[in-house]
């Protein structure tokens, strides 16, 4: 019987394991499907990781290395090349070459499977179906791990950070990036990436544009992009056609919750991740979730921070008989806030609660407001909020303690 089994050995899983260990768990297991720990960080060879956690700027592999070393130092066991087939409360079934299919018992489970990219099908771009269409992450793997060149003349659809990073990466490997095309009137990528990945190399960013045609029978030969109107519909007559051999798609990330879904865990229709309380427990007893499987984060530092908390909660759950109270107060949103994580707060919580959320549109000079029973308890000015950035605020426990009965908690934005 394990105390805590962690599914996924990326930044969330590693940090959750350390959190569980810190709280005194000795019987922990990390299950990782690929051949090494570190998850997607292994292929994110660019810098910009760790400013919050380590107060220095690291590359993805360096950030992962530090966590892997900590896990090794704590002697936390892990399985590699091992895929989890199914979970249920207190048991995990996995498969690998050495053990075949095996089911293990555990007191708590932490879901840390990360996210995946939205594929072309989800976009329904009309046209031919040649080779040369990659998700940005696949192109990143081919370039950085396999050492192969996905293409020479590249159009990138989507200006999220992975798309921007790949624009620079392909350029540094000798490819010509013809344009980065963004459907929205703003980029969801960091300003820093727009400047250092596009402007530095004079790569045009076409806002309010989308790919409207892919041509080429065998390999991509031409990509046509069009401007879009306010309803994001292409405007005829605005077509620009590029002689490109490659189209990279960086059109969004989706939490990878197939295991959670099969286990009957309730998922949020907004985030695609499990609905959790402030201890990161899902609605399935003893199953916790953290990192990008819970909601897509902007910075890995926040993933590590959140996952450590989730690991601690899982450990407390595994080690004590005290189960969290069943009384949970739902957190609702207003204004531009799209969702919050956690979605519920335990009425008896003894700790400050960190709330993370994202906004649906760019907002300048607004406020983040928290209301308890309809009464404003926190109001924080914010110079800028953007969909690409995660907002974080803390509701101190002293605020909640003031109320005899809490009926509602609302988090949102105001002018």
């Amino acid at each position, binding site marked *: 019987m394990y105390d805590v089994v962690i599914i996924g050995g990326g930044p969330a899983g590693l940090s959750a394991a350390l959190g569980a260990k810190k709280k005194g768990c000795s019987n922990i297991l990390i299950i990782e*499907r690929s051949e090494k720990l570190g998850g997607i960080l292994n292929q994110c060879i660019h810098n910009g990781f760790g400013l919050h956690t380590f107060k220095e700027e690291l590359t993805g592999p360096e950030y992962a290395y530090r966590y892997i070393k900590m896990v090794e130092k704590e002697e936390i066991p892990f399985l590699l*090349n091992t*895929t989890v*087939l199914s979970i249920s409360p207190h048991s995990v079934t996995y*498969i*690998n*070459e*050495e*053990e*075949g*299919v095996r089911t293990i018992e555990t007191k708590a489970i932490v879901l840390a499977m990360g996210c*995946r*990219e939205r*594929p*072309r*099908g*989800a976009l*329904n771009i*009309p*046209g*031919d*179906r*040649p*080779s*040369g269409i*990659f*998700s940005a*992450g*696949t192109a990143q*793997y*081919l*370039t950085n*791990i*396999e*050492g*192969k*060149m*996905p*293409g*020479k003349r590249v159009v990138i659809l989507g200006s999220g950070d992975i798309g921007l990073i790949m624009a620079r990466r392909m350029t540094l*490997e*000798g490819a010509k990036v013809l344009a980065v095309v963004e459907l929205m009137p703003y980029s969801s990528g960091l300003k820093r990436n727009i400047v250092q990945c596009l402007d530095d190399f004079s790569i045009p960013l076409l806002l309010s544009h989308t790919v*409207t045609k892919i*041509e080429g*029978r*065998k*390999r991509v030969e031409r990509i046509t992009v069009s401007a879009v109107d306010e309803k994001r519909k292409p405007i005829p007559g605005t077509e620009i056609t590029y002689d490109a*051999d490659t189209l990279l798609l960086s059109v969004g990330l989706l939490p990878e919750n*197939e295991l959670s*879904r099969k286990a009957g865990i309730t998922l949020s229709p907004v985030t695609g991740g499990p609905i959790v309380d402030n201890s990161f427990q899902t609605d399935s007893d003893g199953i916790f979730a953290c990192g990008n499987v819970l909601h897509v984060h902007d910075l890995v530092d926040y993933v590590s921070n959140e996952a450590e908390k989730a690991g601690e909660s899982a450990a407390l759950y595994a080690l004590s008989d005290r189960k969290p109270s069943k009384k949970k107060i739902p957190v609702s949103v207003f204004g531009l806030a799209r969702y919050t994580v956690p979605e519920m707060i335990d009425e008896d919580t003894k700790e400050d609660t960190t709330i993370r959320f994202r906004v649906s549109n760019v907002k300048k000079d607004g406020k983040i407001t928290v209301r308890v029973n309809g009464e404003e308890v926190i109001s924080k000015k914010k110079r800028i909020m953007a969909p690409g950035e995660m907002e974080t605020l803390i509701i101190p426990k002293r605020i909640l303690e003031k109320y005899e009965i809490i009926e509602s908690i609302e988090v949102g934005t105001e002018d």
Partner: protein
Amino acid sequence: MDYDAVVIGGGVIGSAIVRYLSLYDMKTLLVEKEEDISSGTTKANSGIVHAGYDPEPDTLKAKLNVKGAKMIREESEKLHFDYKVNGAMVVSFSPDDDYKIDELYERGIKNGVEDMEILSGDEARKIEPNLSENVTKCLYLKSSAIVCPFSLTQALAENAYENGAEFKFNTKVENIERIDGGYRVITDTSSSITTRTVINAAGVYGDAINNMVSEKKIHITARRGSYMLFDNETKGMFNSTIFQLPSSKGKGVLVTPTVHGNLMIGPNSVSIPDKDDTSTTAFDLDYISKEALKTSPYIPFRKVITSFSGIRAHEDSGDFIVGEAEDAPGFFNAAGIESPGLSSSLAIGEMVAKMVADRLEKNKKENPILERKAPPRPREMSIDERNKLIKANPTYGKIVCRCEEISEGEIIDAITRPLGARSLDGIKRRVRAGMGRCQGGFCSPKVMELIEKYASIPFDEINKNSLGSNITMEDK
């Protein structure tokens, strides 16, 4: 003569023909212009084994459909391809059209279709709760089935191979010349092939092949149909295949589970001048979406994982053309094979093989191999069986395609079996790696490493499908 029979085209029809030919005592070759079997019409169609209610009675389509559907059911037990009797419904949406359901029922009786029933809209919704409220009447075809076209074609081709048939890929027929006692087939590869008989199973190019030899010209129009495939989260939304009432344009847009359970909708039908134009257009996708919504308002378009188009060979006569060309002895056509071509494939294969054997006065082999051993499917096994398999060969315990839970061992099988895969699409068609929700995002580099290792093809020369559809460009 190099061969007794040369089959042109490695789709389901060519593969069925070569499979039945291989049961005879003769030397047979199949030539295919692409890198793999199932590369034309076979790679993108509805995968329905029609019960046979639709074709005009007394046409070849009607006869071969009903017969072929039965043969597919029987052979699925021996050749072990993915096949499932799931039933089908033809639905009408207005009391004014309900008489057409009765007409189809009558037609079905004439065509020899068994297990038909007429249901009210409510009765139909009891079986398929996601059907539209507007369905007023339904012809329920319990014998209708679904088949994986790749799996069927692979089973046929593999079995033919085991019975001694030969295959040449990346070989395009450029001309056919009549020679003494047979034909010389000239291809785009250096050597030409001599053969006593030629069988034309060239799909949308069936007219070009026929017209090289016969003065009795045929004309094939390529009709394109688009589809949308959904995430396997849609499993169980529909168990039966749902057709709308047929029109002059064909059987219309259907809503069906694939043999793997996930939802698929399509096709429309557009005549196209360029026979290789399998592109999708916004107009077509919009059309099939709207049509499918008539059948069910609950279709979850957010869960589309891919859209694609297939082409069908429509001959001007409207019926299949199967048989020896009048003015070209030893030249046989299986042309104009559009729907219900997949359903009819085995009947066509058997029929053509018999014609060829009669012409050459060849007998059946004494002990042909009639059973094909399918590669292991670990995810469909019991845990004990699966563990036994992994113990014997650990690669079945290493999952490469996480969306469809495909192991390394299965991918190695797909490469190393007879007529093994040489391209990413070849792997996808055989074992579904890359067919799931991430569409190969995670597994394609891993699959390419396995192709590099087991098929000895350098990484940069691995194609998506045809020659020239390379994935990576060259070392950085």
